[in-house]
């Protein structure tokens, strides 16, 4: 029988990272993700790995940069204000084509904000976040099992495309406990890391950098990066469809908001309302084609987010030309999670 464990979302991330071969973790404490560094500080030394509690998020992302440049699997985790500090390093890693996994268990609101569940970092995660016009892979788990599975996927995608990958969660998926089947790492074919710094030995010098000064070099480099983002769009979008076949209203939401939305969709079905859910799992690359396909037939979309409206912009850009997109959101704040009943009211409002 497959083993099932009962654990927190944050622990599932840490456990999956280790199963994925991550032996290096660099971080700095911040609620609501501190279970991750705590887990890593306990487990990595037993495996011959390294845990460093860095002096800041700035230092920890740069430790990740250095470790990743040597070819090892490494991770950092934080929450919103800490992710802002990591953006410099994320931009440099993107420029230098370095893989690495970054976990953001989001807090609420700009500034210090609060520790409540929030999806207010969507823009920052999928639109680059740091300077220079780049993307990272962004995965949005909605359950503890997905915290586990998507973390492993994040390591693989990041290595394959040489693009940093982020797990975008919040305190709901981070702190709740659910049963998890700790799947073994799938045997994914990974490209050889023939670019890592290693001490040149008798080989050619290798340089990991983002500075390209020669005529046309930087433009060529940037086109290469953007080609990779296009490849991700073509090959790696993931989403979940629920009761969409005969739906007359498409509800969309990601992460923990999607769980509440799913309950509302089921309640609506009990009331004879033909509504379904399209849940993006990859936020970058965004499942544009899935939205297009669904809205070729069903012209109404209700987007639900734990913010004042962010993903809705990508939804609007993805749907069929004559589809209508509505939005319902709650900017983050203590106790501001919408209830399924509240969302059912919204579904009724936009269902015609």
């Amino acid at each position: 029988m497959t083993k099932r464990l009962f654990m927190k979302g944050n622990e599932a991330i840490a456990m999956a990272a280790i199963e994925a071969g991550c032996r290096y973790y660099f971080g700095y404490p911040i609620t609501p993700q501190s279970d991750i560094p705590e887990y890593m500080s306990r487990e990595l030394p037993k495996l011959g790995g390294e845990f460093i509690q860095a002096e800041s998020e700035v230092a920890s992302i740069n430790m990740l940069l250095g470790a990743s440049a040597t070819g090892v699997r490494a991770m950092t985790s934080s929450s919103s204000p800490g992710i802002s500090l990591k953006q410099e390093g994320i931009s440099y890693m993107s420029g230098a084509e370095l893989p690495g996994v970054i976990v953001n268990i989001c807090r609420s609101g700009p500034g210090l904000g609060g520790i409540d569940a929030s999806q207010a970092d969507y823009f920052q995660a999928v639109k680059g976040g740091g300077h220079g016009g780049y993307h990272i892979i962004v995965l949005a788990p909605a359950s503890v099992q997905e915290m586990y599975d998507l973390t492993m996927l994040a390591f693989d995608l990041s290595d394959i495309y040489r693009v940093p990958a982020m797990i975008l969660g919040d305190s709901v998926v981070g702190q709740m406990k659910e049963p998890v089947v700790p799947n073994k790492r799938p045997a994914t074919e990974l490209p050889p890391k023939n670019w890592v710094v290693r001490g040149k030995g008798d080989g050619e010098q290798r340089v990991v950098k983002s500075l390209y000064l020669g005529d046309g070099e930087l433009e060529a480099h940037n086109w290469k990066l953007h080609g990779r983002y296009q490849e991700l769009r073509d090959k790696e979008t993931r989403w979940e469809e629920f009761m969409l076949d005969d739906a007359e209203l498409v509800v969309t939401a990601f992460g923990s908001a999607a769980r509440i939305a799913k309950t509302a969709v089921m309640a609506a079905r009990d009331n004879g309302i033909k509504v379904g859910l399209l849940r993006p799992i990859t936020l970058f690359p965004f499942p544009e084609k899935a939205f297009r396909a669904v809205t070729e037939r069903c012209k109404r979309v209700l987007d639900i987010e734990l913010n004042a409206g962010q993903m809705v912009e990508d939804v609007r850009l993805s749907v069929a030309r004559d589809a209508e997109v509505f939005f319902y959101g709650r900017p983050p704040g203590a106790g501001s999670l919408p209830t399924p009943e509240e969302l059912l009211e919204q579904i009724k409002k936009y269902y015609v």
Partner: protein
Amino acid sequence: MQQVFKKPVSLKDVQTHFCPGCHHGTFHRIVAEAMDEFGVQKKTIGVASVGCSVFLYGYFDIDVVEAPHGRAPAVATGVKRARPDAFVFTYQGDGDLAAIGTSEIIHAANRGEDMTVIFVNNTTYGMTGGQMAPTTLVGQRTSTSPYGRNQGKDGAPIRMAELLAQLEGVGFSARVAVNNPKNLMDAKRQIKKAFRYQVEGKGFSFIEALSACPTNWGMNPISANERVGTEMCDYFPLGVFKNAADL
């Protein structure tokens, strides 16, 4: 005929972009000589910082990772923890290490990371055009201290070699210069000691290298070189501030 003087194998046979009279090139050379002497070229991973020395990989024939401004000690920490067998050094200017990167250098040093830091102090931000640095001397005019550095307003220049020597994690800390043959020979000796620390796994070693920036000081190479030996050495005394393993 016997060859008695040649380019270190760790340096590429190319011309540097440094201005005439700049000491960066001399420091590159003696760092490369130390690398040759210990035979570590092939297992070296250098960490380049932001500033006039960013093109490190164009001159050293070694593997290099480029770090964001000031973050080289954190990047080097990641490199060294993942590859403890590699010889790891950072090469950073004073703007880089003593301003934006103070947190990273202090904590890497305090953890006693087994790495070597070459800190080139030219009392100014060279690459960006000669602005005031944390090491700019009191009274020194720069493009952002046009009336001279004012201690009451700007603070006093930071003495990094002494400051880091206070930390338990630091094995070796010294300040050197290459403004005359005697200092140059001593600089080579101290850099070798700093390297030996890492080669023997004895922990964090730090070299502060006083350097001329004739371009931004608005001086010719000869008077810039003289300023290193006078004004700079007055405030930043040469010497060894810590040698914990007594190498």
